[in-house]
């Protein structure tokens, strides 16, 4: 019977207002309605696949009116041909197999929908529908009505959908196909050279191998040639230079050999080399399809809002078209897209997207509203002060840092070593050639090409991709999602760590308060608790949960003054809860902290002061970090928490308050100009500039599916205390790469012995090349997994 207390649809506790329908209990009408829709259409199988898979459908009246506008529809549709239209909707709620099932059976709910396909990883659904039977708005409303509200943001409002880049898979396929076939064809010649039939048909075999290699060198390997060319042009000897050189020499020498019948060529090694290299690239390319590291404010802002014309008519308006002086209507749960002034309505703004602070801010008519806040109680009207691009928050994105690619300026370990490597190989090749010119000039060119072939740094080029690629997977399992491999390398070089305060080192819940003043009597406390019960203000809710349980009493009088406090009375006692001025205390000693003041029967009693709730393990983390790194905290808030932080954190931690988004960015820039490698850890959109400017920017997120500004890595908030270990692990990964470099040098020395002495046979190259590559792959995989095991 326990199950009955939980909503059959969404799994939430039903509480006191259980709605019973068809012997099943529901927590609200929304859930019941969804169940009704499903049972009418024979889709209750939804509940068999997974217990309580649903979400409560939200009130969406009028929210999607903008989908009637043709120019917005055109931008959102992926494909439109006469009546057939296709749209891909991002639905954050997709989380289980029931979700896939119901969303792929949408055609049973609306005959206008011909088919729908879910991509679970990307959390989106691709819906094809007949526009003569239902409009895009109908589709969105249908999906929302069953609890799967799509997330349509300003980012979707752009011409052209991005194409999936599959070229790496094609290249890998071509190389693998050629490698396998060339191996078979070259096998006979490895062992039996003088045999009669082999002698007769070897030319056929060789030319077939040649034709397999042509697409490999000209298609699969083209990235290496392009990259080597680019590197040389900007005077950098990157790792692709010796690879391109080796591949080109392999191909040219092999072709000459088979034309003049000198030998069988090295086509097997050539195709194998390219195949292994591409495999490394493929492995390194770990992507988290459900996360995005490139988000800016556009991902969070709505496409359109409601504009009120001077005549009082409500029309949807595209966000980019909003001009100064326009009047906007912001509904409950809608985001404020531009800076403006509140005209009327009860504004309670949640700025958590911006600051990470989840406590809502109350505003009165005439107050300034900033873009990025979310209205949380009823409708408001506002007048626009600035357009979208010029708003306080969004203008941050006009800073140059957002157009810079961080990886461009970073030299990877592989490229550092490849410079010396290339020079060494070339000198060995020339010295060996010079020696053989003097001793036996017929062998000179043979030796020269052999050195370049055998020294082709396949194993070196594979070390970093396999180590770092595996590291990304290990981090991913531990809820630390890193954008790409070079971020792991950069993380290992960090020497300064800067934290944001609110939302980063603190949690989002304010569940910690201290009381100062005269002790409240039991009856006063009882009255206070019952007064708070009637209020929906976030601080009232928090304080209500903190106080001890008391009997429920009915109040004789209760009134909530918006932005000030609450007044209530029971029998002869009255109580006032709220701001200092409201309760009759004129001088508040500490205006920096968040406090709730209490007065009973017009006598001031005391105040509850709320403190930030710091993440668990914070002190330990900082104490571990202080041994190796310079630490600082940059906060957008006032100094209210300074004393508290000083107690918690090591004494040399710098604490800087009242930082605007631009200030944070400049602070990091200043430290970088002094040679520091900065790791920035933040969470809100106001940290976006700092995250972009830092060498590595990590964003901490309570729910990785919902929110994170552009960054290099996303850390799940529950793993915040593990940060030190993760950074140490990146250093371990670099050590592994260095060891595998040593291992591949060892193979190179063996190979060079054969090459320099002029006895490099194709079979030696064909054994050495895959052997070195595979042993590097095995070594790096095993050692990173050992490293990963220590993390868990």
């Amino acid at each position, binding site marked *: 019977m326990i199950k009955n207390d939980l909503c059959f649809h969404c799994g939430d506790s039903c509480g006191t207002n259980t709605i019973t329908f068809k012997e099943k209990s529901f927590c609200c009408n929304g859930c019941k309605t969804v169940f009704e829709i499903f049972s009418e259409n*024979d*889709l209750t199988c939804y509940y068999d696949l997974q217990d309580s898979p649903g979400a409560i459908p939200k009130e969406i009246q009028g929210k999607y009116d903008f989908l009637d506008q043709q120019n917005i529809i055109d931008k959102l549709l992926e494909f439109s041909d006469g009546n057939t239209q296709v749209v891909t909707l991002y639905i954050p709620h997709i989380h289980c197999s029931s979700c896939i099932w119901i969303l792929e059976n949408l055609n049973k709910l609306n005959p206008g929908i011909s088919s729908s396909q879910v991509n679970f990883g990307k959390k989106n659904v691709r819906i094809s529908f007949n526009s003569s039977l239902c409009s895009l708005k109908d589709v969105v409303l249908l999906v929302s009505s069953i609890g799967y509200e799509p997330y349509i943001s300003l980012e979707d409002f752009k011409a052209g959908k991005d194409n999936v880049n*599959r070229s790496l898979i094609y290249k890998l396929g071509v190389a693998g196909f050629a490698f396998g076939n060339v191996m078979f064809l070259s096998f006979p010649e490895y062992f039996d050279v003088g045999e009669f039939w082999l002698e007769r048909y070897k030319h056929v075999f060789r030319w077939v191998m040649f034709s397999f290699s042509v697409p490999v060198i000209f298609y699969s390997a083209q990235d290496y040639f392009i990259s080597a060319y680019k590197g040389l042009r900007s005077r950098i000897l990157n790792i692709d230079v010796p690879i391109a050189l080796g591949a080109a020499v392999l191909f040219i020498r092999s072709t000459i050999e088979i034309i003049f019948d000198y030998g069988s060529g090295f086509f097997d090694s050539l195709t194998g080399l390219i195949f292994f290299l591409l495999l490394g690239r493929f492995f390194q390319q770990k992507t988290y399809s459900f996360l995005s590291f490139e988000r800016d404010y556009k991902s969070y802002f709505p496409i359109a809002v409601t504009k009120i014309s001077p005549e009082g008519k409500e029309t949807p308006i595209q966000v980019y078209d909003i001009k100064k002086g326009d009047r906007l209507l912001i509904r409950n749960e809608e985001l404020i897209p531009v800076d403006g002034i509140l005209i009327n309505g009860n504004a309670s703004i949640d700025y958590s997207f911006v600051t990470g602070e989840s406590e809502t801010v109350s505003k009165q008519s005439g107050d300034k509203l900033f873009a990025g806040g979310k209205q949380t109680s009823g409708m408001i009207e506002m007048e626009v002060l600035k357009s979208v691009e010029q708003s306080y928050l969004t203008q941050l994105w006009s800073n140059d840092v957002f157009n810079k690619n961080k990886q461009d300026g970073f030299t990877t370990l592989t490229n550092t070593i490849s410079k010396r490597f290339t020079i060494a190989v070339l000198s060995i090749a020339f010295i060996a050639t010079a020696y053989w010119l003097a001793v036996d000039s017929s062998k000179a060119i043979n030796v020269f090409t052999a050195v370049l072939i055998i020294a082709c740094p396949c194993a070196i080029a594979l070390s970093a991709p396999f180590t770092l690629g595996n590291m990304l997977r290990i981090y991913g399992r531990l809820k630390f999602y890193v954008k790409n491999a070079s971020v792991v390398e950069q993380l290992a070089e960090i020497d300064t760590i800067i934290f944001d305060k609110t939302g980063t080192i603190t949690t989002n819940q304010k569940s910690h308060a201290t009381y100062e003043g005269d002790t409240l009597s039991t009856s006063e406390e009882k009255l206070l608790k019952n007064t708070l019960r009637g209020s929906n203000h976030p601080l009232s809710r928090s304080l209500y949960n903190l106080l001890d349980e008391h009997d429920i009493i009915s109040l004789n009088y209760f009134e909530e003054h918006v932005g000030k406090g609450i007044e209530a009375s029971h029998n002869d006692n009255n109580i006032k809860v709220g701001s200092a001025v409201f309760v009759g205390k004129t001088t508040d000693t500490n205006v920096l902290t968040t406090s709730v003041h209490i007065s009973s029967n017009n006598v001031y009693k005391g105040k509850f002061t709320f403190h930030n709730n710091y993440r668990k393990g914070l002190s330990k983390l900082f104490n571990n970090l202080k041994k190796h790194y310079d630490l600082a905290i940059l906060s957008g808030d006032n100094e209210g928490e300074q004393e508290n932080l000083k107690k918690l954190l090591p004494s040399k931690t710098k604490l800087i308050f009242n930082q605007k988004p631009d200030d944070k960015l400049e602070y990091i820039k200043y430290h970088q100009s002094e040679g520091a490698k900065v790791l920035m850890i933040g969470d809100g959109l106001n940290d976006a500039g700092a995250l972009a400017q830092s060498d590595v920017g990590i964003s901490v997120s309570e729910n990785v599916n919902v929110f994170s500004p552009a960054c290099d890595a996303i850390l799940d908030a529950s793993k915040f205390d593990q940060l030190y270990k993760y950074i140490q692990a990146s250093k371990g990964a670099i050590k592994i790469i260095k060891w595998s470099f040593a291992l591949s040098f060892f193979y190179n020395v063996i190979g060079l012995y054969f090459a320099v002495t002029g006895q490099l046979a194709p079979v030696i190259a064909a054994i050495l090349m895959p052997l070195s590559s595979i042993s590097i792959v095995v070594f790096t995989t095993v050692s990173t997994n050992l490293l990963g095991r220590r993390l868990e």
Partner: protein
Amino acid sequence: MSAIYILLSISILVAVFFFIIFILAVRSGQFDDSYTPSVRMLFEDELVKEQSQSTNKKTKKD
């Protein structure tokens, strides 16, 4: 021994055939989402049961 030409061309033709299938598979987007199909595959049975149930209901009404 000219059979070797026939054998060689057959083996290459088979290889090329599979290669073309691979290209078509990539092009159709089969490699884009490697998770959802594994779940979707298990739905087939549920759907059949669902349909037979609904037809049963209809026949009962009739």
